[in-house]
């Protein structure tokens, strides 16, 4: 028996329990075996349970059967049959066979991810620092975690990596080479000889023994290409560290979520090391590899899964972990449906967060305060959980506006899951506030904070999601009811202190006070809001100026989330304008960004007009570039998501026409995939980018691009007091004399102030 210390790497099931790759402190990588049995539970009428017992005894004599009592949070404690297997790989087979025989029994703890079971049993998680006692057969006898997922300061291993990327986007053109980068350097491998390619890659894997393989298009192109090449020329290729296993390959799929269609490409998952395809990693752009590791640490899900799945999987896993640790049953198929409600109760309950309409125009010295993780804070503070909602006990709290109570006797499963997550994020945000952006820790802390934010965000959504294991719509409604109540309390606090409410949006307030222009002057406001609501709150900053924009269709009608402004430290904040939209051509985005940067030099709203001559000149130059054809075609690309199959469109929008062209070129795309195209003159008015190159760049629809450009320019110059007609006359025709005493409502606001 000997001891090893290191970090938990890949963990997956085996015949006898779990295989755990330990990333040893000295640099070695050890394949170890961890004993683990799997238990699921069955409930139902006594006679049927007895028959199920007899069936299992006969069909699966190795299963260990016991009678026990466990808690179903929706029903209470109930008697169940526990079915335990020493071989995890048999678990699903035995369950399916039993369910086929007894479909009407209630099953629990069926689809819990394997690593969550390991985490519940041993308290470990990916990259957990631990020490193990191991025998000569690599069997772990004792495992002691040395850090917690909730530690901000923790040790991290020196991960070895291999970065593999093609020399071009395979969706656009056939790659000719791949680049393989490691800590030792970068090599180029041509794709013309498959034998050489595979031999060189095998060499790279053997030489560097990477813990993590980072790829571009690894899931969707590289690994499928390599496996096919391997079969074709009979040269073996196994990128796993565990050579006894074959890689897992999952098919592509498209699904509908949060109002839009998402495409998830096919996947290649490795054993013993992690493969992350940065082009197929769902939230990679939000928080990168540091964020992926952080989500894996706190959720105990495998790194490869976390990288590819939405944060919903993470929060769902965490809830299951809380349930396992507290002996709460995890339902396989949820039995609960929405409770009966009278019409008025539905009208009262079915509302979201409070969204104000801003006062249109430019406002100086606006103070923005935001509640920190407002919904999760409400869930924790008011103990909102499916089992606590609707229970009127001696220690229950009434939900404002709704005639329902929340039991405060025992902490609910959702608050119990969220509390450490929320506390960790608040701590990290506190650290971030003290760090300079140049500090090397800033980027890491920011990624962690973003990763945790997404887990917290989806947790609220999962309360109302019908398929969530621990969801219940009434708890979802209670959260928004409390949020409206607290936001209004904050508004009242601000108004009592003499602030004017310029805007409010779910968890943030935009306020101004004639005597408040410095951060330290806002302390009484923050203290008062915290005193009245009991929720954590932070000052986002004070804007030198902020412009709230009207609707594009009606310039007197405000819209809630369309504004841009500059904070006192020079940071810009924009919402709802072209620069933020994913389908805006890069060229137009850049022009709008430069215009805002120029406007940002103004110290307050009155000086915005000084930027006008420069802004007009920049716009004129942009128009000239479009007319002269000097803008690179890549910068004119429009990127839109295909929301359904091309054949399902009744009216063919530009994106469908572009996708049709791809289909014709033999490159069919699935719903949820992004399509890049150019606007051109003549039918079908679009040209798809990932087909053969456009033969006549002269066919670019310049007037349309100018129109799109002017729309983007107008949005940012409108608060300066220039209307559309004037802007077009000045920039396109060059014959307009700026009339800075426009009587538009916007300039009027400026003049009045």
């Amino acid at each position, binding site marked *: 028996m000997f001891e090893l210390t290191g970090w938990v790497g890949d963990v997956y099931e085996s015949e006898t329990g779990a295989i755990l790759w330990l990333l040893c402190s000295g640099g070695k990588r050890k394949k170890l075996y961890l004993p683990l049995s799997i238990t699921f539970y069955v409930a139902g009428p006594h006679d049927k349970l007895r028959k199920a017992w007899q069936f299992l005894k006969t069909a699966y004599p190795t299963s260990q059967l016991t009678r026990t009592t466990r808690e179903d949070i929706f029903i209470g404690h109930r008697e169940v049959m526990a079915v335990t297997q020493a071989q995890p790989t048999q678990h699903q087979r035995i369950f399916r066979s039993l369910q086929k025989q007894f479909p009407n029994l209630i099953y629990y703890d069926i689809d819990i991810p394997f690593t969550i079971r390991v985490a519940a049993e041993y308290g470990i998680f990916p990259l957990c620092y631990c020490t193990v006692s191991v025998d000569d057969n690599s069997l772990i006898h004792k495992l002691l975690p040395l850090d917690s997922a909730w530690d901000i300061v923790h040790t991290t291993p020196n991960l070895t990596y291999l970065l593999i990327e093609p020399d071009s986007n395979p969706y656009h053109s056939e790659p000719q080479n791949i680049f393989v980068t490691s800590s030792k350097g970068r090599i180029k491998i041509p794709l013309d000889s498959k034998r050489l390619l595979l031999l060189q890659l095998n060499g790279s894997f053997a030489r560097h023994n990477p813990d993590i393989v980072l790829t571009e298009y690894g899931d969707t192109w590289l690994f499928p290409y390599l496996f096919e090449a391997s079969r074709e020329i009979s040269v073996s290729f196994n990128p796993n560290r565990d050579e006894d296993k074959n890689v897992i390959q999952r098919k592509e799929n498209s699904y509908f*979520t*949060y*109002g839009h269609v998402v495409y998830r490409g096919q996947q290649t998952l490795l054993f013993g090391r992690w493969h992350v395809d940065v082009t197929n990693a769902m939230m990679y752009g939000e928080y990168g590899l540091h964020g992926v590791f952080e989500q894996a640490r706190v959720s105990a899900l495998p790194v490869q899964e976390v990288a590819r799945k939405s944060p919903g999987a993470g929060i769902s896993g965490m809830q299951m972990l809380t349930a396992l640790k507290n002996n709460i049953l995890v339902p396989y198929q949820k039995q609960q449906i929405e409770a009966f409600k009278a*019409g*008025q109760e*539905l*009208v*009262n309950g*079915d*509302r*979201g967060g*409070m*969204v*104000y*309409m801003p006062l249109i125009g430019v406002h100086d010295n606006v103070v923005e305060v935001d509640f920190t993780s407002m919904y999760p804070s409400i869930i924790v503070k008011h103990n909102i959980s499916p089992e606590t909602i609707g229970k009127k006990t001696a220690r229950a709290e009434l939900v404002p*506006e709704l005639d329902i109570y929340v039991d405060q006797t025992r902490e609910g499963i959702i608050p119990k899951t969220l509390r450490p997550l929320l506390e960790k994020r608040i701590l990290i945000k506190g650290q971030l506030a003290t760090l300079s952006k140049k500090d090397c820790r800033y980027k890491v802390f920011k990624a962690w904070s973003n990763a945790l934010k997404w887990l917290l965000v989806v947790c609220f*959504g999962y309360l*109302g*999601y019908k398929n969530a294991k621990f969801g219940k719509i009434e708890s979802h409604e209670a959260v928004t009811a409390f949020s*409206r109540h607290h936001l*209004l309390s904050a508004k009242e606090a601000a108004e009592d202190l003499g602030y004017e409410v310029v805007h*409010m949006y779910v968890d943030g307030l935009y306020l101004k006070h004639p005597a408040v222009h410095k951060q330290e002057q806002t302390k009484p406001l923050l203290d008062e809001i915290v005193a009245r609501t009991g929720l954590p709150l932070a000052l986002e900053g004070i804007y030198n100026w902020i412009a709230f924009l009207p609707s594009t269709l*009606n310039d*007197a*009608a*405000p819209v809630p989330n369309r504004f841009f402004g500059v904070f006192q430290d020079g940071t810009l904040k924009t919402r709802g304008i072209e620069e933020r939209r994913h389908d805006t051509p890069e060229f137009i985005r850049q022009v709008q960004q430069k215009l805002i940067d120029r406007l940002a030099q103004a110290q307050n709203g009155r000086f915005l007009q000084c930027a006008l001559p420069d802004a007009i000149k920049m716009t004129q130059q942009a128009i000239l570039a479009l007319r002269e054809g000097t803008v690179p075609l890549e910068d004119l690309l429009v990127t839109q998501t295909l929301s359904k199959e091309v054949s399902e469109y009744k009216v063919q929008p530009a994106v469908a026409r572009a996708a049709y062209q791809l289909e014709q070129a033999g490159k069919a795309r699935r719903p949820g995939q992004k399509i890049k195209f150019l606007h051109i003159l003549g039918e079908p008015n679009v040209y798809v980018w990932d087909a053969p190159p456009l033969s006549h760049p002269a066919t670019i629809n310049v007037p349309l691009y100018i129109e799109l450009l002017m729309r983007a320019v107008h949005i940012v110059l409108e608060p300066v007091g220039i209307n559309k007609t004037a802007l077009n006359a000045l920039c396109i025709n060059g014959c307009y004399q700026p009339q800075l005493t426009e009587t538009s409502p916007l300039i009027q606001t400026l003049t009045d102030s």
Partner: protein
Amino acid sequence: MGRTLKTANQIVLDEQKEFKQFRRALRRLDQHSFDKLFTYAKQHTAAISQTSHALPFETILLAINLELLKEIEQLKQKINV
């Protein structure tokens, strides 16, 4: 995900649509004023939503009246009444 009930903004738009024939029968100049009334209502969608009134049009009328009153008061201030 998704809501069973309409948002306050959608309610205002739908109520406006309900009066399509009413609007049609108005003179062009009056149609502009009619549209403006609903723009006033849109400025108070948060309050309309917060009320959860079974007959939302009543809250829309209240929101319109509120803006009209503000306008009257501003005009009064301008002529020092």
